[in-house]
């Protein structure tokens, strides 16, 4: 969930990407209304997508920690962010994972593009275990605890489903 305010519009909006349906399709929640997104093209500074089956083209102009300047369908728009992402990440990887839990579980589906540990390696919490590719992006999967890698269930090139066990760390 991210909080945004659009300059010139007197309202704070809450946006949440609810889920990924396929490679390019997402469900997004804007102020409690779900919308379908279909990403058509993406480059470093622009994106084209369908929002509830309407085509839109967006150019990204500038981004700072709290501000995003973009041009949406030719109209310049400035957003200020109140990014709660870090809290959520902290909660998930810190709070709810107990030290007793052995299995390192994949929270996304993807393809393994690199395995960075061997069995019997000693790892610390936060050490890189493997890199997955998902939705055209690379995701670093890191150890959820200090311990020793007892078993690795993946290898480079293999596919990983959501909730698959990547490795067992004791």
């Amino acid at each position, binding site marked *: *969930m*991210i909080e*945004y305010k*659009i*300059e*010139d*519009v007197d309202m704070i*909006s809450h*946006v*949440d*990407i*609810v*889920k*990924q349906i396929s490679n390019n399709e*997402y469900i*997004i929640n*804007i102020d409690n209304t779900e*919308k379908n*997104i279909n*990403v058509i093209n*993406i480059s*470093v500074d622009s*994106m084209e*997508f369908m*929002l509830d089956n309407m085509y*839109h083209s*967006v150019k*990204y102009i500038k*981004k700072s920690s709290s501000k*995003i300047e*973009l041009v*949406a*369908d*030719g*109209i310049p*728009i400035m*957003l200020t*962010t109140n*990014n709660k*992402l*870090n809290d*959520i*990440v*902290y909660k*998930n*990887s810190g709070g709810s994972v107990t030290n007793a839990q052995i299995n390192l579980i994949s*929270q*996304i589906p993807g393809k393994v593009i690199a395995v960075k540990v061997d069995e019997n390696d000693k790892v610390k919490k*936060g050490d*890189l275990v493997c890199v997955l590719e998902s*939705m*055209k*992006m*690379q*995701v*670093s*999967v*890191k150890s*959820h605890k200090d311990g020793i890698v007892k078993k690795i269930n993946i290898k480079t090139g293999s596919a990983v489903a*959501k909730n698959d066990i990547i490795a067992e760390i004791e």
Partner: protein
Amino acid sequence: MIKKILIANRGEIALRIIKTCNVLNIKSVSIYSDEDVNSLHVKKSHESYYVGNAPPAQSYLNQKKIIEVALSSGADAIHPGYGFLSENSDFAELCEKNNLIFIGPSSNSLKLCGDKMKCKKIMKDADVPTVPGSFDLVKDVETALDNANSIGYPVLLKSVFGGGGRGIRLVNNDNELRNAFELAAKESITAFGKSALLVEKFLPKIRHIEFQLARDQQSNTVHIFERECSIQRRHQKLIELSPSPVVNQKVRDEIGQLAINAVKAVEYSNLGTAEFLRLDDGTFYFIEINARLQVEHPVTELVSGLDLVKLQIDIANGENIPFKQSDLKLNGCAIECRINAESTFLDFAPSTGLVNDVILPSGPGIRTDTYLYPQCTVSPFYDSLIAKLNSWGQSFDQARKRMVNALIDFHILGIDTSISLYKVILNSKEFINGDLSTDFLDRFNILNRLKDSMKNETASKQDVALTAAALHSLLYNSKISNDHKQNTNWDHRMYGL
């Protein structure tokens, strides 16, 4: 017969003239300044010659050099376009002396059209009504007061050395006139060595309506309907249309005949335009003759089916106008928007530089005349007119809606333009109702409405922006993940999964 024409101009009008030359199998010779070496008119003409540095005085106004190029290139005629040398009687005379056909009126006729006082007197003799006021320079304050009282206050006190709205004072009574006269006379003497003032009736809420005219060397004269050009900003036309919503066939016949009388009175030849002011009560006053092809000529081309540049060349060749007044039928309605490179909210300051991308509108009833192409530049040295977007429809409303959609489709990246302003004007109920006047922008607070419209547009794109921002956080970061592997756990994970 003209076989090769030097085009003493640049930009869209040079390209427009080249197109007709191509259709007529006439070779086109273009000229260019330093600034224009990459311009389309250089690329599209048969030959092109460098004439000087970027400032117009050194290039597009450099009469001697232009004549030299015309002669050495073997051109037999010069088309001056609009602006630059188009109404310069000295240049027309220089062409005549060098046996080059100046595609326009004779130098004598040009001289007459340029002398507004003389012209006004000639019109009086020809029974063409002009704006009530003095027919001579007003030498002293007593004459000014006499004039003002005979035509009735409010009046304008104008300096003949002014132009484009400068040097004009609005006065409401004898007292104000006395004060203003003293000041204005002093100013004029300081600046120009002599006082040259006029008194003219002040006319509120006027429309600018002009008639396109053609007159051949055998004195056959026709008008090719009117254009209403009331949408202006500081005397600069922004939007033109034909027919005018307040001109019916009876008025067209009547004022068209006055316009014909006006050009006959100055022994005009070739194409020209008689400009009139129209009051709310339907009175028309002649103001002046524009002795050139007008920027807004496509509007007339669209409703008449004529190629006006071809007609100019035919007349310059000594041919008869190939139709009679009664042959002309006004077909449908046409609108032109002058797309300017300017920043509306920076007091319309010119916006120049690299044009990263351009997509021109097209389709039924749409015509775009422009010198833009992707990666071209808009120069600060010349006019801010970068494109003329024209629409035609069977009705005013069809033309208007086609224009609105073409404005939406017209994509110009890299500079500011007047496109957003025109969208607001064309969608306004006052424009739809034809309630036009030269103070339209002020009278209806158009700039404020543009601001509101832009706010609404922003609001309408709220979901798009929010989606884009969220996707940006999600997907864009992943693109640079290789550089940022040392982030927190699951640094690029999706929120909901």
